[in-house]
């Protein structure tokens, strides 16, 4: 028993203290991974903020965006043109979703909208496969993928680029929500569809805007994850990595998606490296959920979520 306690409570910390450069490397790895999760979580947050809908199709939107981008690149489009065309496709998709899926379901219970996004998920997956094929595609837009050493700590250029990109994106989104009229309107729509409509906020336009922004975020996420693993259908599964981030950070908070991502990223890497070997490894997937659940018990609305107050 005392051996077990030592292995769990003492040995990992001795290991950390004994090799601080490696600990820093693990922490940096966690920060970078967390920011990559945040990129995916942001898409969920945007749509949830504006419509109260948990968009089951967000992972597939990342895949669809990446497939479109790489498909255009393979056909010889220059990077800038391919990015612009992919953004146009995602805006077009947002318009189509508003017209075909959301508009007929205005004021329906949220569970109905959620079910609609499940349908959307499978449609986009099948359509993407039909349009662009199922093969793994290399995504090369010139982001370097080498590593360099700083004081004994190895840093990967691709992950560093992704981290900086995520940080810039979040800053822009936070400014968009806090300082623009559309941002204010988005928050009003998220609070109450009918109330927002009654004061003249164009619900349809807001939905198109927010799904478009989520589409653009999906392009960035698809770009980074696609550069990491190639563009393939498993990309849609990264939504699973965003869920604990959302639970922890709160479904309506852009900063929450970032802080949640960082906590999950660092937590799972520390867990896997220092405690994983005690149980045979491969704990990081479920460890992230345990971490999120632990936060949930203390703060059900997540770290940055709005506290739910029901008056009766």
């Amino acid at each position: 028993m005392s051996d077990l306690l030592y292995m769990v409570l003492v040995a990992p910390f001795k290991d950390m203290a004994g090799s601080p450069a490696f600990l820093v490397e693990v922490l940096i790895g966690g920060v970078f991974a967390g920011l990559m999760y945040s990129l995916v979580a942001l898409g969920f947050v945007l749509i949830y903020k504006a419509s109260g809908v948990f968009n089951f199709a967000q992972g597939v939107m990342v895949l669809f965006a990446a497939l479109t981008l790489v498909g255009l690149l393979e056909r010889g489009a220059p990077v800038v043109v391919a990015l612009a065309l992919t953004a146009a496709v995602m805006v077009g998709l947002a318009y189509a979703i508003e017209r075909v899926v959301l508009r007929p379901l205005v004021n329906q219970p949220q569970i109905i909208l959620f079910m609609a996004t499940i349908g959307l998920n499978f449609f986009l997956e099948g359509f993407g496969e039909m349009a662009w094929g199922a093969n793994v595609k290399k995504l090369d837009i010139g982001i370097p993928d080498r590593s360099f050493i700083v004081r004994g700590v190895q840093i990967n250029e691709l992950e560093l680029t992704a981290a900086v990109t995520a940080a810039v994106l979040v800053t822009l989104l936070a400014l968009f929500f806090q300082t623009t009229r559309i941002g204010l309107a988005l928050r009003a729509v998220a609070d109450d569809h009918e109330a927002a409509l009654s004061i003249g906020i164009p619900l349809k336009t807001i939905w198109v805007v927010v799904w478009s922004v989520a589409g653009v975020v999906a392009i960035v996420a698809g770009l980074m994850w696609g550069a990491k693993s190639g563009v393939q259908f498993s990309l849609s599964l990264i939504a699973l990595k965003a869920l604990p981030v959302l639970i922890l950070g709160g479904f309506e908070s852009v900063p929450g998606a970032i802080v949640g991502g960082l906590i999950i990223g660092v937590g799972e890497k520390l867990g896997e490296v220092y405690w994983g070997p005690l149980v045979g490894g491969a704990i990081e997937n479920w460890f992230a959920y345990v971490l999120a659940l632990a936060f949930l018990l203390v703060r059900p609305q997540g770290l940055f979520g709005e506290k739910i107050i029901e008056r009766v």
Partner: protein
Amino acid sequence: MTLRAVLVGILALTVVAGPSVARVQAAGEIFIPLLVYRTGPYAPNGIPIANGASDYFTLVNERDGGINTVKIAFEECEDQYDTKQGVECYERLKAKNPVLVNPYSTGITYQLIPKAPVDKIVVHSMGYGMTATADGRWFPWVFNFPMTYWSQASAFVKYVAQQEGGMDKLKGKKIAHIFHNSPYGKEANPTLEDLARRHAFELTLLAVDHPGQEQKATWLQIRRLNPDWIYISGWGVMNQVAVKEAGSIGVKMDRVVGNWWTGTETDVIPAGDAAKGYKSMAFTAPGAEFKVHQDIFKHVYDKGKGAYGNDRAKVGEVLYNRMVVNAMLNVEAIRTAMTKYGNKPLTGEQVRWGFENLNITDKRLEELGMKGMMRPLRVTCENHEGNGLAFVQQWDGKKWNVVSDWIEPIRDVVRPKLEAEAVAEAKKLNYTMRDCAKEK
């Protein structure tokens, strides 16, 4: 017609049409079901496998008029590499009286093992599935020739020893096994652990959870460990990420060796130049320079019946060739059975005899246009793994090249372990051991 009506119509048609049908069975034909995964996350691996089977069976029908004039009927069922869907496919196609099935998934194989003797359908899990089923005395209906995961792991260790200068040079070396955290990924562990004890090398086991999109923690541990050799048992996106991570942290790629499911074109292309030098185990040679490929082009693709359509460049890829060999072994097992039971559609029991008496010689491989594509193979009642050998291939940035001789597994270590495991697994199914001596 409203938009909604059109959508409902499309949906209804999709449901009614069901899975794609390559060729339906007619009277006087022999039926082989194809469990395929052309869609979903594992489709990049599933497509060349499905196309290899389809092209080879079409070749036999078009060039030879079937197996000794008995045509092969085959039908695909899409399972997305999902065990539940795979079993559903098997159950659906069982009504067409199949004589054998290639599950192409270790998970599905495990589910079909107990069904095989009941349904009288041979299960051929070529280089995957449950290693213990190689003991034919306990598992008469399951075949995993030409090699098992355990033999492969031992061949890998032997290769490392060859590179290091002998088995005695393994002492003190550090070998890491990065594996998919599933029954498949774990298969090699007992053999590696046994060999680590015998040859005093330091083995580290690192599991990667499905799907393996994020492996940073694993590769951080690799960086700290700094192993002499890395062995990877992955599948799907895990492979691409592993090769890329290995390249990006600066591991010597010629010391990273995937198992034979971790060494396809798909696994290395996303990593670009970083994948150069990466190696993998294999038991079928890559490339489209064999005579069988000329036959496939002439009798299948020139007639517009090729599974890849006009995209002939993919003929000869690693997984395509592996399935061509798999299909050839299926056909030759049926042909062997016909020597005893006649040139007519056979039952599963008759085909099982053909599998158990399969003898592919060098001469036969030459006749089939596959000399050098695989090693001669002999299967017996006791040994359903056969006497297969492995080799190592290496990615040069554009294609896979064979870089080793054929490697004999360490059979005196693997076989006793395998027999002990077979007893344990068979007991779970209440099987009794048969006496092969009485069947000769």
